[in-house]
């Protein structure tokens, strides 16, 4: 931990020195960025834009994970679904994110629905593939046990199915979150009038690097915090039953 902090301090120090040497508008000093951050925070714009971007990340990520899990289970367990769905997956996996975003905006208008759908569609095939892998490796013996003991449907999902899929869900979450938030910024840049992506677009037009960093850095911080305080504890929780090496 101490080493990590040291490395972070070092990074900021290098930034400071580089900014002083460059003495240019395109590389502001850390202090200047913090000042802009405080200004934006004071007006409330920072929190509003961070909040709205975060909401888009959560909704589109949630949609992608829910449908990815459902499709993944269906395809992993049923040959016919797998054959039917596989070509779609291949198409979606290979369609550039930008194409999906532009098509969504053209077909559905510059709306939040289009933005969220575009992001979710970008993440969906990846989530489906990961969960399908998990569904293929389900333990048939446990399923038979559950059926012989006449476990109700809800018990089977919660205590037999999901614990087996949990490592795959965690893996999809890990890669998924970082993909999703990056795409959300692009979507906002292209077709929304608020959010971190939109503010970054504005900063780009004004050539205002302080503003750009004042929005980008806190958002990166939030995503790192989600990873550290939600995703990792979740992973830890679902694997707590695994015997630990002494």
């Amino acid at each position, binding site marked *: 931990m101490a080493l990590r902090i040291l490395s972070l301090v070092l990074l900021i120090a290098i930034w400071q020195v580089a900014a002083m040497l460059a003495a240019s508008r395109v590389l502001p000093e850390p202090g200047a960025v913090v000042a802009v951050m405080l200004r934006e925070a004071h007006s409330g714009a920072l929190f509003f834009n961070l909040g709205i971007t975060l909401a888009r990340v959560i909704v589109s990520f949630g949609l992608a994970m829910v449908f990815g899990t459902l499709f993944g289970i269906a395809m992993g367990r049923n040959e016919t679904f797998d054959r039917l769905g596989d070509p779609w997956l291949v198409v979606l996996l290979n369609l550039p994110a930008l194409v999906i975003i532009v098509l969504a905006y053209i077909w559905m208008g510059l709306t939040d629905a289009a933005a969220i759908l575009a992001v979710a569609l970008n993440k969906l095939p990846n989530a489906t593939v990961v969960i399908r892998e998990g569904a293929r490796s389900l333990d048939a*013996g446990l399923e038979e*046990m559950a059926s012989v*003991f006449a476990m109700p449907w809800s018990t089977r999902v919660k*205590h037999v199915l999901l*614990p087996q899929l949990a490592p795959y869900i965690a893996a999809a979450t890990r890669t998924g979150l970082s993909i999703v938030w990056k795409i959300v910024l692009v979507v906002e840049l292209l077709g929304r009038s608020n959010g971190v992506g939109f503010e970054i677009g504005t900063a780009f037009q004004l050539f205002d690097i302080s503003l750009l960093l004042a929005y980008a850095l806190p958002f990166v911080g939030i995503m790192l915090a989600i990873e550290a305080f939600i995703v990792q504890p979740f992973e830890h929780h679902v694997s707590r039953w*695994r015997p630990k090496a002494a």
Partner: protein
Amino acid sequence: MSLAGGQRQLDIKITRKAFRTASGELREVLRDFSLVLDAGKIHALVGPSGYGKTTLLRIIIGLDRDFEGQVSLPPDTKIGMVFQEPRLLPWRNVRDNLRLVAPEAAEADLSRIAADLGIGEHLNYFPGELSLGLARRVALARAFAVEPNLLVLDEPFVSLDRPLAMRLGDELVTLVERKKLTTLLVTHDLDEAIRLADHIMLLGGRPAKIIADFNISCPRATMTAEHAAELKAEIGAIMAGASA
């Protein structure tokens, strides 16, 4: 009509059960096989490895429907099954493994079953932290916990040391006698079969059938060592004859 009432017997008729092997040929495991389970009795099925014992159990408990024949369990049948492997949920501790199959059972009943089988101290352990012998006992406890009226056990006492296997066998008998459970026990240990069962059925031949069926007339409690030895010699002779 219910099994627990002790009136009903269970008829199992399997005209043919075959597996298609990976190389594409058909391998018959059971043919013209029939079996009657009397209510409230312990039936031991004894046979060599690979002769279709597990296959038969899977058909009886409804996991394998790909066969010709008929197995009709009464609709109120509640199965308590001990698989050949423990098949516990690794991500739930022992208590939850019992609780999940018996959500309505009283906590005290679960604790008592666990104590009877000697796993009372291990209720908070996860299956990965148990020895195979302990895991087998949990599997046994789970089958008891559901308060079944049909108890099916696939070699439940292998890998346990002799005194423990004897003790657990006694627990099984106590439970079956108290609840009048119809029980089918697969084993390859003849002594165990003689000690526990009311009926012993010998499986042999390919495809497998029942080659001999013994009714142990003398009650378990009065079984003497001499009588057991006589029985064993008699059954052993039949088995030797069958495999010759």
